[in-house]
């Protein structure tokens, strides 16, 4: 025992930590200190998670709900990238546009994405449009800011060389600013995807009739703690997958440019 306590083996310690966490959870649940209804054991949650994969709850299986959420996420995040990145690059090149948009953007940026919920519901309804707008509100600022910063920090020699060769404005943006800004943009996309995914969860808790957030609200209404926890696991997994994919893209791009080891 003392040997174990003195060990520096990170893997062993990690396993011990994880096991004691799960053991404590199980103990609390099984001993009845906390009612089983409110704190089901890890095994029960895992069982419910697997059960929900193939059985319908609140009009769909867990996979149906996750799919609905991911479609919304793709819509809101895609829009944020398609508008935010080009606008950021344009602002990085045209000073007039920069001076006009920046004060407006700074004023709107401070609004928490979740505070857009009432207007989103009023304007676009609670089906697809409303949640997409909230995801957009969360994902848009990092896209714009990072594209803008990337465009501002382009090597001036590149710009001068291109300008000397008479490059027109639009080609300058697409062939000089965009490629140099890519590392900054992709870092922005990671932040943006994280915030967008968070905002989606919030939006679905409040206004939605499908999706993983809706499933959790229904689970809460039916006092089914296992369903709520299964939803949390699903959200965590998808969030992780999104981050891993983007991180992979980031390293791949940096490596191709010889910036990463």
């Amino acid at each position, binding site marked *: 025992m003392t040997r174990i306590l003195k060990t*520096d083996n990170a893997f062993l310690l990690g396993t011990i930590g994880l096991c004691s966490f799960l053991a404590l959870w199980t103990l609390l649940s099984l001993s009845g200190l906390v009612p089983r209804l*409110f704190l089901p054991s890890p095994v029960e949650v895992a069982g419910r998670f697997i059960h929900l994969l193939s059985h319908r709850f609140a009009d769909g299986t867990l996979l149906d709900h996750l799919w609905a959420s991911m479609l919304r996420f793709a819509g809101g995040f895609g829009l944020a990238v398609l508008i935010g990145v080009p606008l950021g690059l344009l602002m990085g090149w045209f000073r007039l546009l920069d001076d006009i948009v920046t004060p407006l953007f700074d004023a709107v940026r401070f609004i928490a994405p979740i505070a857009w919920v009432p*207007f989103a519901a*009023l304007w676009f309804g609670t089906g697809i449009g409303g949640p997409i707008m909230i995801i957009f509100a969360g994902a848009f600022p990092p896209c714009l800011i990072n594209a803008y910063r990337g465009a501002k920090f382009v090597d001036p020699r590149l710009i001068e060389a291109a300008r000397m060769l008479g490059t027109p404005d639009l080609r300058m943006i697409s062939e000089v600013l965009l490629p140099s800004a890519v590392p900054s943009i992709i870092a922005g996309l990671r932040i943006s995807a994280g915030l967008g995914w968070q905002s989606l*969860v919030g939006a679905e808790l409040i206004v939605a009739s499908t999706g993983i957030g809706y499933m959790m609200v229904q689970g809460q209404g039916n006092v089914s*703690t296992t369903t709520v926890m299964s939803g949390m696991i699903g959200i965590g997994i998808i969030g992780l997958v999104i981050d891993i994919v983007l991180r992979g893209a980031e390293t791949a791009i940096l490596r191709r440019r010889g910036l990463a080891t």
Partner: protein
Amino acid sequence: MSRKTVIGSATIFAVLALWFLLTSVTQVISPGRFPSPSDTWLAFVQITGKGYANGVLTEHILRSVMLVTLGFLVAVCTGVPLGLLMGWSRRAEALINPVFLIIRPIPPLAWIPLAILWLGLGDMAKIMVIWFAAFVPSVINAYAGVRSLDRTLIEAAQMLGTPMLTFMREILLPGASPMIFTGLRLSLQASWTTLVAAELVGAMTGLGRVLNAAQQDLYPGMILVGMIAVTLCGWLMTVALGIAERYALAWNTAAKALD
């Protein structure tokens, strides 16, 4: 005045004029979709005078700000020590990190249904959710702060036989504090967003409750007033934290000036 401020203020002015023109004058945007300036003003007068959704504006603001402060303090008092511990002891890090890695990907807002299930719609549920939201950034940044400490400093202190408490007070905390404050700022933002979301889901008073009631009453003027209040409070709290940071880290800027 610089060119930037001239164009900036002109833009803001133009947008406000356009708002007035599109809503009040021509009614291109219907009053049911977006409020006119006068609608917004009337909503503001109503909520400050007669009250709306169980209270006047100051009551809602006080409620929300109090809950955020409480939840934030609980999170900081638990998160920062844990982060310091994980940064200091490799063993504690190895022990705790895997559990932390599992909980971390769950967004703070996803805890809301569980909190309601456990603690109902009252204040405790909100504090719990804020705690979860603010905890993770506090831990991560305190941890990173300890890891960024100068090794030479630590070794020098150890060689001189500095007692543990002095060491913590004189080296660990000051050295990690710039990163800790970065974490606090992130925590505070997360807390505020989460509280508004939790109040939107269910509450008796609070700014989120105002937004929720206004949405159900289809009252665009009040929605806008609520949004502005949420934004201003969030911003003011960040500013307050910034002032606290400058005060707490005064020695640091002084040290930088000496360099």
